[in-house]
């Protein structure tokens, strides 16, 4: 990997990180504003349900609580914002893999590809578990 590829990584990786962070922040703020303007009580009810879930045997499996806010306007924005945030690492690893591929740095292309494969395995594990 030459200086040009290193420069590429150091220039674009922060942009990817910050870009995704800003996009996610906009979506999350918009989602919270929509909920505050339309159904603030659903937000409070969802929060209170989580507080009361502490002593439950499910030990706070939020999937059972999220449904309280699932159909509220704005929740889709929150979910999308969180999804964008979670995909940030995937985006920057994928970008690095492309740079290593361009530089014909096969060892690091293989390593970053393996990390990508593991990240996708995480989605599969979550779906199965």
């Amino acid at each position: 990997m030459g200086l040009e590829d290193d420069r590429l990584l150091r220039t674009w990786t922060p942009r990817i990180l910050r870009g995704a962070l800003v996009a996610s922040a906009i979506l999350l703020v918009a989602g919270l504003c929509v909920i505050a303007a339309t159904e603030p009580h659903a937000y409070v009810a969802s929060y209170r349900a989580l507080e009361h879930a502490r002593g439950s045997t499910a030990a706070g499996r939020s999937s059972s609580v999220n449904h309280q806010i699932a159909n509220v306007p704005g929740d889709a924005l929150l979910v999308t914002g969180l999804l964008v945030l979670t995909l940030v690492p995937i985006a920057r690893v994928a970008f690095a893999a492309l740079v290593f591929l361009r530089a014909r740095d096969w060892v690091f292309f293989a390593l970053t590809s393996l990390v990508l494969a593991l990240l996708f395995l995480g989605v599969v594990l979550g779906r199965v578990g």
Partner: protein
Amino acid sequence: MLAIAASLFALSLGAGFVGAIFGIGGGVLLVPALTLVLHMPIRVAIGVSLISVVATSAGASAAFVRDGWTNLRVAMALEVATTAGALLGASLAGVLSARVLEGLFAVAMVVSAIETLRQRSRDGTSPARPERGRNLDGTSPARPERGRNLDGTSPARPERGRNLDLLPTSDRLAARLRMGGSYPGQNGPVPYGVRRVLPGAALMSVAGLASGLLGIGAGVLKVMAMDSVMGLPFKVSSATSNFMIGVTAGAGALVYLARGDIATTIAAPVALGVAAGALVGSRVLVRSRVRVLRMAFVVLLLAVAAQMGWRAATGG
């Protein structure tokens, strides 16, 4: 609603700020804050914390990468170990009881406190320690002309306050992977070497496991692996750790998200607060040595660890 969202945001802002300053990701403060202060179930706190750790990393590491503090090749190579560990940890978190998780979290906080205390005497670098009078590979060192480097150039003067014996050479595997690098010093780039990649990777997999299991960035373990085991300068280790925790926590967060275990009501304001705090905290880290705050932070960690431990023991 506004009061709840604002309190979550403020709490997370503080966690993100402190987390970025000490290179620990903020999760180690956020999980106790959510469970002990806001009475959230620990599994909810862990899921939310993982999301926030991703935000912390994205916010804090961007500046370090741009400014040349982050060793990208070390990070990319070791992320294989941390990601695999995180997947295992996140899967285990789904089956362990809340009290076991709380007990493990208390242990993680004590480890964080000890390591933070250990770093108190550091001043930017950690020297590699070859056998006296020998190179790292056991051979005798070549003797350059007096007052000259081996290539005949004048030797670089170490930055004030840094160790004189910091070696810019890497061992065989690290050299093959071209992991060595340089960081911005006062008088230009300061080169450093990388050693013991495999032991470092082993410790990284433990860091990944802790991250997925407890919802923390496990930055303390990552910094320990790079700084103490692999011989990277401390600030480079801290910056590289900040960069890596995003992928480590992201791996765990993907498991939680795909399982539907992320509470959106809490995660949204928390992610915003942590990201904002991390952005400010990363600037403070670059400009200061934060020695003044370190002792107060250690006391806070130990106090919260005791409370978490008590809760795990009594179920209260």
